[in-house]
């Protein structure tokens, strides 16, 4: 085994990307737009979510630009409200929720379990079209004046006091929600019913377990968001009165229904990322994941417990003290399974042969930043501190640490890790390591100061703030600029690598997992023969034995 890296590539002077693969199988626009191939659909998703991520990123830039100065001088406060609302809506519903599941999940799950495709290929394609329709509706909202309710659509602001495009945004999210439901439904059926012979539940890669848990949340949670949106639409159009105190309605009812989905939604967002981290940490420490069963069960535990804690988003909204007591306790408990994962990953690293390829750098970033974000979540679980910290920049920092420092880093880790499998080519290692570092530095400069200003009392969603907070805000904006560069670089060099990247071969990382036993990029039908599985996940001894028989490089 070589020194600083485990990368094992075929001889570049003779290697070629296989002529027949899922990308070349058929040509023409229709073969892509009418495809049932999960890998092509994953590719369509990857392009679409990158597009919306870019828009969401520009909106973030505008927010940070406005917050350079204490006055609301870059844009009118109403406009600022629209900017942060669209930033939230796009980043959550059009980027984070589908990010890993719709791209990496779609691409990998059938291969990882030894199947030829997902159980319902047409539903998979429908899911992508629903995503696109949702996205178009969001774009329509943006060009027709935007919406300024905040992504949380709190009533009665959204139902009675605003004249902006609540309905079109609501429809967009409703449609995108069904995209998510169908993806989750497809994964659940596939994982239950299409595992290859010998692929028992406890031989599955942890990436599959993580997506399984997230899929449960997608199927059971998203419909409640759908009905909440329908009720807001009815309230706005014909004034039915369920959320209007003047008519005897209760605005809090909306929040109960909204957060019943939106809290599990954060686990929908993070669980697949945690699945990626399990795979990456194992591969780049050449060690099986410590406590496989604990990590697998903790994914499901997070999903189940995630349904019991939603009221912690409503502590200051007028809910009863007794219910805050119950939900506060349950929220503390839900942190435990996440902590279990962090411990298990740490023990995986211990005495492992660690190398620092780009996916591993992102994984390290995840572990540190997600831990900080998660711990600050415990401060917020405690009602007493939450009353002081909620609706301040502390919350903004908390969720950006877990979502950007955590989830986005995991997504980038996954994209880099499986890029060779997806495209047949390696990304350029040096510049990508640099980009990872730039992202990490930029991230900390952007979001750490926000914990401080939040604790000091700076409210969120305000375009203007007291002058004493300016220094930290300037730091934050400077960091955001660095962060932007860190995210731009992958888009550039990954595109470059499509033509000029080194040929990867089928298993450049010497990783375990069925996806590394097939060619890169895979054939449309994934396997020429359905495999029969006789070993556990992360079994590096099995891999060594197999390499001696049939070298997979080249």
């Amino acid at each position, binding site marked *: 085994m070589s020194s600083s890296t485990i990368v094992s590539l075929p001889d570049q002077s003779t290697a070629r990307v296989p002529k027949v693969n899922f990308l070349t199988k058929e040509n023409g626009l229709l073969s892509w737009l009418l495809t049932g191939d999960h890998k092509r659909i994953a590719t369509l998703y990857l392009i679409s979510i990158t597009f919306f991520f870019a828009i969401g990123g520009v909106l973030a830039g505008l927010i940070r630009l406005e917050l350079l100065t204490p006055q609301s001088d870059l844009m009118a406060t109403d406009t600022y409200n629209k900017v942060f609302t669209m930033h939230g809506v796009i980043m959550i519903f059009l980027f984070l929720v589908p990010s890993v599941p719709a791209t990496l999940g779609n691409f990998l799950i059938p291969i990882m379990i030894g199947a030829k495709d997902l159980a319902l290929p047409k539903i998979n394609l429908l899911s992508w079209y629903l995503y696109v329709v949702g996205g178009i509706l969001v774009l329509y909202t943006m060009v027709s004046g935007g919406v300024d309710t905040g992504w949380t659509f709190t009533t009665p602001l959204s139902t009675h006091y605003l004249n902006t495009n609540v309905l079109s945004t609501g429809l967009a999210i409703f449609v995108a929600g069904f995209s998510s439901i169908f993806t989750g439904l497809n994964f659940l059926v596939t994982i239950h019913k299409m595992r290859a012979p010998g692929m028992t539940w406890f031989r599955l890669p942890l990436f599959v377990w993580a997506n399984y848990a997230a899929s449960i949340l997608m199927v059971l949670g998203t419909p409640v968001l759908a009905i909440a949106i*329908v009720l807001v639409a009815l309230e706005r159009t014909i004034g039915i*009165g369920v959320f209007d105190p003047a008519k005897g309605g209760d605005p809090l009812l909306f929040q109960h229904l909204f957060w019943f989905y939106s809290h599990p939604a954060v686990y929908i967002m993070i669980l697949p990322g945690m699945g990626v981290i399990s795979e990456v940490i194992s591969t780049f420490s050449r060690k099986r994941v410590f406590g496989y069963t604990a990590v697998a069960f903790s994914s499901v535990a997070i999903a189940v417990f995630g349904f019991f804690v939603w009221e912690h988003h409503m502590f200051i909204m007028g809910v009863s003290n007794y219910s805050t007591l119950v939900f506060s306790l349950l929220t503390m408990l839900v942190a435990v399974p996440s902590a279990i994962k962090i411990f298990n990953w740490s023990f995986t690293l211990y005495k492992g042969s660690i190398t620092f390829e780009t996916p591993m750098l992102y994984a390290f970033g995840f572990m540190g930043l997600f831990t900080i974000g998660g711990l600050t979540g415990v401060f917020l679980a405690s009602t007493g501190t939450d009353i002081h910290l909620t609706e301040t920049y502390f919350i903004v920092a908390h969720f950006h640490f877990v979502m950007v420092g955590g989830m986005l880093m995991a997504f980038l880790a996954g994209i880099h890790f499986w890029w060779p499998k997806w495209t047949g080519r390696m990304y350029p290692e040096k510049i990508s390591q640099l980009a990872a570092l730039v992202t990490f530095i930029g991230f900390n400069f952007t979001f750490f100061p926000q914990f401080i200003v939040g604790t000091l009392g700076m409210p969120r969603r305000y375009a203007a703030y007291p002058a004493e907070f300016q220094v930290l805000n300037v730091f934050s904006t400077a960091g955001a600029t660095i962060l932007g560069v860190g995210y731009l670089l992958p888009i550039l060099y990954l595109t470059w690598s499509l033509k000029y990247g080194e040929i990867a071969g089928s298993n450049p990382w010497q990783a375990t997992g069925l996806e590394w036993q097939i060619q890169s990029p895979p054939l449309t*039908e994934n396997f020429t023969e359905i495999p029969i599985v006789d070993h556990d996940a992360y079994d590096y001894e099995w891999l060594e034995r197999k390499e001696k028989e049939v070298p997979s490089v080249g």
Partner: protein
Amino acid sequence: MTVHGGTSDQPVVHGAHAEHEHPPYQRHHFESMEQQVDATSFAMWLFLLTEIMFFGGLFTAYLIFRNWYYPAFVAGSHQLSILWGTLNTGVLITSSFTMAMGVWCAEVRRKGGLVLCLVLTFVLGIVFLGIKTIEYSEKIEKHHVPGFHYSLKSFTDPQSDPEVYKDYRDKALAPDMARHTEVYFSLYFAMTGMHALHMIIGIAILGFMIYKAQAGAYTTGHITFVENFGLYWHSVDIIWIFLFPLLYLISRHS
């Protein structure tokens, strides 16, 4: 492990259907019909779970407001006709029976029986919607549709509504409680309307199925479509089983 993926650019091509025998309606990504049936059935159940959670939000709203505005809910419920409601419940239950019988006919490959059962289910569905239309038009006439010239008169002055008054002799509601009847009717229309929408979709699919059944598509051993649709139809029935007592039977003793 026996995987031949390699980096070969000579893929193994599955010759037409010579290498593996499978029924024409088995999709290629499934390894067996058993797997396909299992998978599609499970998928249908998962979809029904989303329906439970979708209606669940409405039931939650209903329970809260019924607890808060009970007198208004009583007065609102008295405006609904037990006759039509019970009749509709009977119609839907019968249609569930005919649907179940339809599945049985498909299982034992009786094409004529299947078509008959599907047609009966279709007709009963239309009858249900017809009765609902009658009920809705009554509500429209009496201005009990929230947001469309909603009138409180029947509740602040019950004697102005002799049909309902003679059965229940309700006391007049105070003006603020009378206003809350609008919440009752909002939930009535939202819940029965959403239910009716699901019925309409079901009836449309039934139409398509009758046509295919007549052509023999479901009586050659491949019955999953009929079976899975049956699951959908029964769950729409179950939703009504709960809507009926909750909306129609609030304090109906005279």
